[in-house]
């Protein structure tokens, strides 16, 4: 493992005046015992709800037995993993999870950038404020409500989409019942919900670009398009790389909530992803060990992807999540 650097700004780390000598642990403890006391409850929280579950993941290598408990149950080695890998659903789960996330990243990334660049061209004013406020709003709507809206609007009986198509004399296919449409519905509704929110990060990056670059571009007679290509885009590159790395690192951890809510028996072929499968085997069928193995497989792939993508990003652009 690399050592982690906090992804927070260290703006105050600029050497100002003299550097304070670091306190030794013992002196720090004596001087700040109240702070150490203060930090105990939240650290206990992380221990209990984050680290104990990590150690509980040994279940993946056991045959869980309620009576004997997690540590008392028998070791079975890689049996649970073998069972999962040889299961016919294995490849379709991996494929569905991967495609769904990859498609989401590919679709939402450029749209957020375009929205931010376009907003950046418009002067501060009523129009710009309205666009920002409205596009940002869906982010605050709950997943349950968004999925309900999708279902209501796509329903062949009532939905406004089918009426719109009917106006042109086209019959609407059953969009939610057909597995072929699932990914598009999932991804584009996600874009609808998060584009405005994601754009804010790029807008912040754009606001931070050195003004003299714009003036230089203007003196050189650059058009607006050229200014975007040569000043704006390079300016947001570091931010974009970080966001992409994070997104790819999360590729296997795609939102369980929405996929689960949008699922129905008809579109299961493409909507069953690893997370929903874990929920069903683990909590509905109470096959704790198998579900843990599947979840662990997912987490490990996730971590490997993140490390790998970060390595590439660092090599190509010099930016990464950690050094």
């Amino acid at each position: 493992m690399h050592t982690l650097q906090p992804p927070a700004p260290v703006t105050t780390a600029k050497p100002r005046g003299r550097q304070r000598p670091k306190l030794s642990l013992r002196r720090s403890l004596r001087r700040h015992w109240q702070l150490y006391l203060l930090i105990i409850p939240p650290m206990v929280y992380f221990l209990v709800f984050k680290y104990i579950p990590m150690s509980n993941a040994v279940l993946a290598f056991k045959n869980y037995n309620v009576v004997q408990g997690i540590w008392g149950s028998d070791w079975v080695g890689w049996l649970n993993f073998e069972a999962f890998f040889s299961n016919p659903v294995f490849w379709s789960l991996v494929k569905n999870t991967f495609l769904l996330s990859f498609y989401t990243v590919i679709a939402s990334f450029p749209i957020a950038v375009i929205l931010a660049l376009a907003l950046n061209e418009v002067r501060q004013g009523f129009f710009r404020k309205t666009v920002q406020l409205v596009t940002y709003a869906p982010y605050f709507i709950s997943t349950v409500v968004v999925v309900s809206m999708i279902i209501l609007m796509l329903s062949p009986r009532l939905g406004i989409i089918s009426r719109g198509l009917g106006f042109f004399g086209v019959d609407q296919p059953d969009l939610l019942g057909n597995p072929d449409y699932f990914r598009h519905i999932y991804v584009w509704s996600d874009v609808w919900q998060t584009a405005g929110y994601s754009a804010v990060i790029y807008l912040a990056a754009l606001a931070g670009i050195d003004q003299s670059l714009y003036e230089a571009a203007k003196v050189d007679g650059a058009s607006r398009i050229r200014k975007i290509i040569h000043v704006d885009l390079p300016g947001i590159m570091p931010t974009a790389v970080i966001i992409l790395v994070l997104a790819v690192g999360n590729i296997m951890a795609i939102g369980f909530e929405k996929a689960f809510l949008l699922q129905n028996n008809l579109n299961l072929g493409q909507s069953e992803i690893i997370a929903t499968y874990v929920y069903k085997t683990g909590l509905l069928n109470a096959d704790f060990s198998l579900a843990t193995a599947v979840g662990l497989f997912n987490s490990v792939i996730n971590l490997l992807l993140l490390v790998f993508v970060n390595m590439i990003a660092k090599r190509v652009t010099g930016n990464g999540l950690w050094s």
Partner: protein
Amino acid sequence: MSQRTEERLPDGSPTTGPGAPTRRLTRRERKRRDNAEERTRIKEPRSDRIFLFFVYLLLAVFLAIVALPLIYILASSFSSPEAVSAGRVTLWPVDFSLRGYEAVLGNSQVIQGYVNSLIYTVAGTVVSVVLTIAIAYPLSRRTFAGRNVFMSVILFTMLFTGGLVPTYLVVQSLGMLDTRWALIIPQAVGVWQVIIARTYFRTAIPDELEEAAQLDGCSDLRFLWSIVIPLAKPMIAVVALMYAILQWNSYFDALIYLKSPDLFPLQLVLRNILILNTYSGGGQDASVVMERQQLADLLKYSLIVVASVPVLVIYPFVARFFTKGIMIGAVKG
């Protein structure tokens, strides 16, 4: 420095930076200034104006795509059951009626869910904010030995998790299943919020201030309580709102940890009614059944509005702060 660059300031102030006029210009003065600017600035070529036109067009399309579904839902919720079922509503209420809202308010499940969600949101936010400050403040102090170790321990949980079942087993062994605690404690601290709070404490509370207080015999806790927290009110408000909105919108924890319907938060009730279609309808008479069906259709639209209103009403007032929060969290040091 020309006027053009000034417009690009992120805070959008129309003034001209250092030496900005403190009084408003009279109309004539403004005109003179604008004319002078007109003469000196490089003229915008036509291609740029065409480009700008397309930018506005693009934004208008974005705006429409995001706004239309919301307007459609709102319009439907204020229409009559017949109009909704017949699909006659588009972007304006048809046969204006409040039947949908009456049905929502008359539904005991919904009311119970609403009350539960309020409880979870208030209690959960208080617990989360307290724990977040308790961890973020010490980690923001340079003289706190071991803060990098603590921080790494926290950050690692962003990258790797035990998974659904192992977490569930912990909650189970603590006896929290099917209690209100299960919705408040297991997701209490967000790493993102800790980062935001720590960054804020670091920049807003200089070490000198702490040293000075210490020389005056002020203990750490006293300093935190009477100096740091009052100074950090804006940040605390942002973090509290983030937690509150997350809590209000979440349903998954309730789905896995709760069994008793009278503990269900609003989102889970919504899921049962909106997605699983379990709006109970009785009556054998065909016309009654149809009326119920129509009312059930309408109820969904009104329910969506009722469930989203608290968040959407607050959000325009806090959007600015949220933006700052995202930026603190997103910019890497």
